[in-house]
């Protein structure tokens, strides 16, 4: 530290010292007679600065420093004999300076930069001493000569010009170019920051949601498909990939939003009868023509995000009288009502399945009526988020006599009455295999009654987002139902919604304890997929009863119990015991799951900060 300002001190007393000889004589000289005096001496005298005093001060400081360093040397040698001093500051210096430096170090320790550096090195430095060392380092760095100044190299003592790239030496000083080169060669890279033993929550959850269990390698097939997708732009032709792989590739490319006019060509196979593309947003109108023209044998058209699809495409289909049986389109909003009607009239009789999503500017009740009239062979119908249809079209659905699969979801502002649904149940309920009615908020227990009475062949049932069904109604549905056990059940969000009364009314609304027990008693033997997310009124007791020892759900692969806040570690273990085939358990907002042992091959999705053990491998989630 001394070295920093010593050179300046050196020069000033010397200079003043030379003059001082004259000045000191001053008082002894008789008044009036003066030797030659410089303007500076005059000036200093007039300002009451005595060169003599400056010199004396300097001599005194020198002597003091000498004495202190002798003392310190003695002390430090003594200290070294007894024990090494914990302080890193071993060099001698006067107390004022030392205090100043200590203050600077304290300041640095509170500074942002210190915190940042500490974080960077965390793991390596964590005790007090290391903090001191780090602070000292920063302090020294701040006191280093600025770029452009001259400094002496710490190792070879050569004088050199400091640049922003000058390296620091082992003791904090700067090094000349040659020495820094040598130093660099010696210096090994600091060990990379070790990752905490936990797992990154985000990546982990993303993988789980993709269905990857966290251990073992991925299948070669999946790895290859990903690789192919990575290099899709270099691929000229897929060769003869089987349709199943083509479908999977289409899914991955769609997810990466990589389906463009160019990649589309890879999927166009004249001999294939189906095309599935889940993201067509980047295709132009011409591309749709290309699909239709190059695959004349298409019977199944499954295209999503089809915004640029226009009337011409439908006209083309009608002109060629294409044998399309399955038409699944998401968002073809540029197609007009007139065109839809024509399509149903011309090709409707061939349609076996029709799935439409997200139509807001066309497809009104009249079009829907014509659809039901002309597509009399329709076995599968799915209509979701069609803005212009309501109760009126529901009544028409009951005329579709061969319907086996029905899936409906209206906009939530469309008020749907229960009566048309009852009519559908009584007319086609008996043959329905799957039934999905989402967000029919005001449908009441009469609908459940009708399902109970009419449905005999259901395998999949989805009734969601309703706060009118009662626990009693649902219990009655599953008790003594002549329908065989269901395989796919989604009853999420059947619950009472009343902010002021979170526990719900006395008479439970939605899927609560009794109906959950009844459901599992009815379908437990066959059930594969169960979603009861947000059914908040299912009690701890009901869970305990359903997943009691001795109960077994051999086929259950997917279970979603999100927002069932009563579920804890014990219940989770009970679930694993009762469901040997379980592959995914979704537990968003089940905060009582803290520490679980999960079987191999199971993906537990939605835990927060839980400790998860798989076959002896323990993982703690970092949040």
């Amino acid at each position, binding site marked *: 530290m001394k070295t920093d300002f010593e050179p300046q001190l050196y020069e000033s007393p010397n200079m003043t010292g030379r003059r001082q000889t004259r000045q000191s004589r001053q008082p002894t000289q008789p008044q009036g007679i003066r030797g030659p005096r410089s303007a500076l001496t005059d000036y200093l005298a007039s300002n009451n600065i005595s060169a003599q005093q400056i010199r004396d001060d300097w001599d005194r400081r020198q002597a003091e420093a000498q004495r202190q360093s002798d003392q310190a040397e003695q002390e430090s040698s003594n200290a070294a004999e007894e024990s090494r001093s914990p302080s890193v500051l071993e060099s001698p210096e006067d107390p004022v300076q030392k205090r100043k430096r200590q203050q600077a170090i304290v300041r640095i320790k509170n500074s942002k930069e210190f915190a940042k550096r500490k974080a960077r090195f965390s793991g390596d430095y964590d005790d007090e001493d290391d903090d001191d060392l780090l602070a000292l380092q920063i302090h020294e760095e701040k006191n280093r000569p600025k770029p452009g100044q001259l400094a002496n190299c710490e190792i070879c003592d050569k004088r050199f010009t400091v640049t922003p790239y000058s390296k620091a030496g082992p003791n904090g000083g700067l090094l000349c170019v040659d020495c820094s080169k040598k130093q660099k060669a010696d210096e090994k890279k600091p060990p990379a920051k070790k990752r905490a033993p936990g*797992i990154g929550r985000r990546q982990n959850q993303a993988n789980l949601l993709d269905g990857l269990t*966290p*251990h*073992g*390698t*991925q*299948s*070669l*097939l999946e*790895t*290859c*498909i*990903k*690789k*192919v997708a*990575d*290099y899709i732009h*270099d*691929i000229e032709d*897929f*060769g003869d*990939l*089987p349709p*199943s*792989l083509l479908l999977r590739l289409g899914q991955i490319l769609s997810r990466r939003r990589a389906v463009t006019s160019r990649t589309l060509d890879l999927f166009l196979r004249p001999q294939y009868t189906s095309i599935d593309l889940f993201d067509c947003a980047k295709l132009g109108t011409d591309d749709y023509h290309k699909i239709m023209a190059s695959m004349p044998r298409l019977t199944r058209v499954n295209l999503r995000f089809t915004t640029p699809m226009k009337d011409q495409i439908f006209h083309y289909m009608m002109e060629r009288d294409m044998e399309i049986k399955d038409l699944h389109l998401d968002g073809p909003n540029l197609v007009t009502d007139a065109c839809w009607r024509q399509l149903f009239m011309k090709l409707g009789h061939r349609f076996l399945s029709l799935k439409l999503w997200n139509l807001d500017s066309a497809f009104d009740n009249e079009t829907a009526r014509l659809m039901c009239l002309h597509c009399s062979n329709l076995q599968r119908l799915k209509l979701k988020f069609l803005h212009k249809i309501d109760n009126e079209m529901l009544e028409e659905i009951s005329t579709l006599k061969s319907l086996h699969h029905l899936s409906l979801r209206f906009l939530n502002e469309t008020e749907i009455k229960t009566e048309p649904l009852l009519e559908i149940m009584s007319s086609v309920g008996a043959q329905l295999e799957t039934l999905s009615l989402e967000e029919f908020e005001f449908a009441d227990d009469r609908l459940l009654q009708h399902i109970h009475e009419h449905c005999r062949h259901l395998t999949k049932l989805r009734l969601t987002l309703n706060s009118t069904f009662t626990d009693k109604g649902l219990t009655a549905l599953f008790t003594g139902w002549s329908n065989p056990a269901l395989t796919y059940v989604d009853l999420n969000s059947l619950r009472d919604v009343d902010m002021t009364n979170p526990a719900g009314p006395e008479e439970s609304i939605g899927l609560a304890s009794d109906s959950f027990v009844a459901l599992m008693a009815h379908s437990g033997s066959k059930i594969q997929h169960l979603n009861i997310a947000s059914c908040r009124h299912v009690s701890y007791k009901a869970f305990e009863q359903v997943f009691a020892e001795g109960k077994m759900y051999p086929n259950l692969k997917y279970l979603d119990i999100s927002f069932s806040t009563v579920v804890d570690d014990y219940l989770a273990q009970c679930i694993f015991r009762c469901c040997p085939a379980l592959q995914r358990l979704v537990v968003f907002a089940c905060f009582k799951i803290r520490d679980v042992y999960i079987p191999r091959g199971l993906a537990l999705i939605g835990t927060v900060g839980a400790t998860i053990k*798989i*076959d002896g*491998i323990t*993982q703690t989630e970092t949040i």
Partner: protein
Amino acid sequence: MVESTQSEFVTIVSNDGFEFIIPRSAACVSGALRRSLDPSSKFPEGISGRCELGEFSGVVVEKICEYFCYNEKHKDQVNVPDMDIPPELCLELLMAADFLDT
């Protein structure tokens, strides 16, 4: 050769005559190989422990065997990175993976 029904290793042969000898357990990662190498299946492969993949060249079969061993090595580990596959091989390998049910 008859003894090899119980042997710990099996031989995989490519269409251009390269032979790869790998642990039986590793080869059984592939559904197709597991079924054909099963001694009780009475397939010739099951009896001789020698499996000819007549449709794939040595380069592809080598990569497949590499995957078998990679999979075997990492089967008890968490967060295993994907095996590196040279882009020029990925389509062929994709077909092979589909065929072998891996």
